């Protein structure tokens, strides 16, 4: 049983304070959601937790199983068990997708297996989330559609098996079938690995699929409401405006 604790986090970007004191606690196997209007700071929060150089944590801490990981290097945080599925990952055309995935696989499982074995495992895992061989041969995200990008992010969730995963809008730009596939992976990884989730989304559908435990509403850098799935239903009916007014 692991715990990820965010304590009174304040985050600045280019001198401007975006996150104004957020506190959260996620335990292994729990699915939390963050909802909120665009510009409220959801992506900022996720990038700051992962340690992106542009996002400065000016106050507060991030604790993983009691250990203060606030200022660790990004790759160190990942090694401790954090993961982020990006909303809009950047193209890296010079690096082959298969190369990246093999490197990630080896990091988790060590490099005892032969390259061919690892490669065939990656290929079959990729197929199960709808990523073709041709996509594997391309540069990372080079010319990928929105849906393809999301599938690649979710595939990496499956390979890396983190303790805690932040998923930034895993459902945006994804069709109904794609949403089912992604939700199935989220559930599977939770069952097998007891991963705890922080899912950023605008829509309740994915939260229904994955059986979210707790919903938080982020507005102008602060959590203004927390609740069960009831809160998500409320947002669905009344919109953010409605909820904010209450």
């Amino acid at each position: 049983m692991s715990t990820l604790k965010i304590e009174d986090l304040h985050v600045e970007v280019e001198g401007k304070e975006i996150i104004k004191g957020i506190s959260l606690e996620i335990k292994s196997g729990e699915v939390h959601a963050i909802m909120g209007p665009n510009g409220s700071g959801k992506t900022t929060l996720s990038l700051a937790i992962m340690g992106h150089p542009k996002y400065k944590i000016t106050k507060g801490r991030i604790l993983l199983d009691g250990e203060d990981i606030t200022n660790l290097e990004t790759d160190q945080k990942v090694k401790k068990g954090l993961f982020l599925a990006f909303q809009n990952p950047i193209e890296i055309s010079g690096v082959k997708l298969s190369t990246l995935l093999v490197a990630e696989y080896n990091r988790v499982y060590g490099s005892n297996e032969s390259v061919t074995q690892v490669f065939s495992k990656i290929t079959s895992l990729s197929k199960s989330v709808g990523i073709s061989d041709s996509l594997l041969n391309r540069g990372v995200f080079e010319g990928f559609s929105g849906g393809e990008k999301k599938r690649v992010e979710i595939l990496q969730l499956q390979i890396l098996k983190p303790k805690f995963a932040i998923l930034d809008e895993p459902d945006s730009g994804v069709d109904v079938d794609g949403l089912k596939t992604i939700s199935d992976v989220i559930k599977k990884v939770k069952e097998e690995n007891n991963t705890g989730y922080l899912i950023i989304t605008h829509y309740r559908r994915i939260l229904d699929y994955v059986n979210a435990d707790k919903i938080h509403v982020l507005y102008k850098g602060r959590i203004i409401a927390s609740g069960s799935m009831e809160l998500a239903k409320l947002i669905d009916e009344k919109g953010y405006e409605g909820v904010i007014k209450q």
Partner: protein
Amino acid sequence: MKYFTLTWKGLNAFFNRVKDGRKMTEEKVSVDINEILDAAIEAKYNRVDQIEFHRRVVESGLSRSTIEAISKAKKEPEWMLRLRLKSLELFEKLPTPNWLPDVLSSLNVSNLELYIKPDVERTDNWEQIPKEIREYYEKLGIPQSEQKVLGGLVAVLESEPIYANVKQELQKKGVIMMPPEEAMVKYPDIFKQYFMKIFPASDHKFAALHGALWSGGVFVYVPKGVKITTPVEGFFVIGTEMEGQFEHTLVIADEDSYIHFIEGCSAPQFKNFSFHDGMVELFANDNAHIKFTTIQNWSKNVINFNNKRAWANKNSVIEWVEGSLGSKYSFVYPSTILRGEGASSTSLVVTLASAEGDWKDSGSKMIHAAPHTRSRVINKNIGFNGGVNVYRGLVKVNKGAVGSKAFVKCDSLMLDEKTKAYTFPHNQVFEEDADVAHEAHTFRMSEDQLFYLMSRGISEKEATSMLVLGFMDEIMRELPFEYAAMLNKVIKLELDKLGAVA
């Protein structure tokens, strides 16, 4: 044209491997390269006139008598001595190239020592190789037997069976591969037809210097219709004899033939000379295809000039692949004269300037001298720790070269603020319908790309090298697997120095 199969023993005997530890004697002639380069630079600024230049050159040790002694010791035919002397004359007359950076004059270059006899003393002294180099080899996981070749201790790999297949294939197909000194005597007609005709001494000062002092290298002739499927790795098949200071490589591919020749290797090599002025001449006859790859990773005490030019006949293909990783200064401009209709040529060059004071000057010259010819130049420069990369390229489309197509892409990757990159592309187009395109981009390390890779648990170092290798992808793809794998490791070790105090 007579060609007979050469047994490995025959080649071996000629190269005079010192297997029993017997030391060969050689007479060393000392030529002070410092004097020569200083005089050349001063002449560039007209601070030194012709007479003074001549005096300094003679004082440096480079004179008619030096050349005559070399030619005599090598037992060369009269025409070669004349070629050498003519080259010396040209060296003294030609102006200093305007691309010679002033910065060279501040470099303390040791005497340039010329061996009159081609055989070199080899000692079994492991300690001769600098400690850092030996440690580097350990990090790269190079087996000791190979380390000895790289260190110049042995001329060729003891474990010959690895390369036996290549040699067998060559012999069976009637390919001639021998030192130029031998070819000059055995095949004078074909030798004279191309030797320093493709790249004449009159072209520039250092080509002339090469003409006067050349020694060693390799002559390759591929018969009509013969296609060599395995790349010929010159360094391992022929050994370090190939890599003398003034070595000359001449590759002739007769009609319809194919050869991929690789010189050098990715692993760092310690060179005990400081000035290299080599030459590579390629001739692709009608419908022939030559791919010439050079990977150079020499120690930082070296100034590297390499004169490279090819003639491409009708419908032939010339491919240049160049990786300049080592040496402190490097001036390499692979060039092709597309003289036959339908000929094409590509040039892929990657340079790495990774230390304060490194100066990598590169580029390609593509001359379209016939109709429907195509050229493609891709130049990738990587710089950090204050290194400087310079691109100087030329695309020329002569009058009458209708339907020609040329493309040049020049990308610079600057990994820090100190590093510099300069681009001087030139186009001279004399045909209206010529399609000449040029792209140039400067990249810095992308923070977001680095972050993404690190968010997958990849360390900053590893992520940086992934991105750098990604930048070099076009060139990596052209290399045989072992070269690419070794180059991979070498780049990673080089990047370790990123951010370190020079």
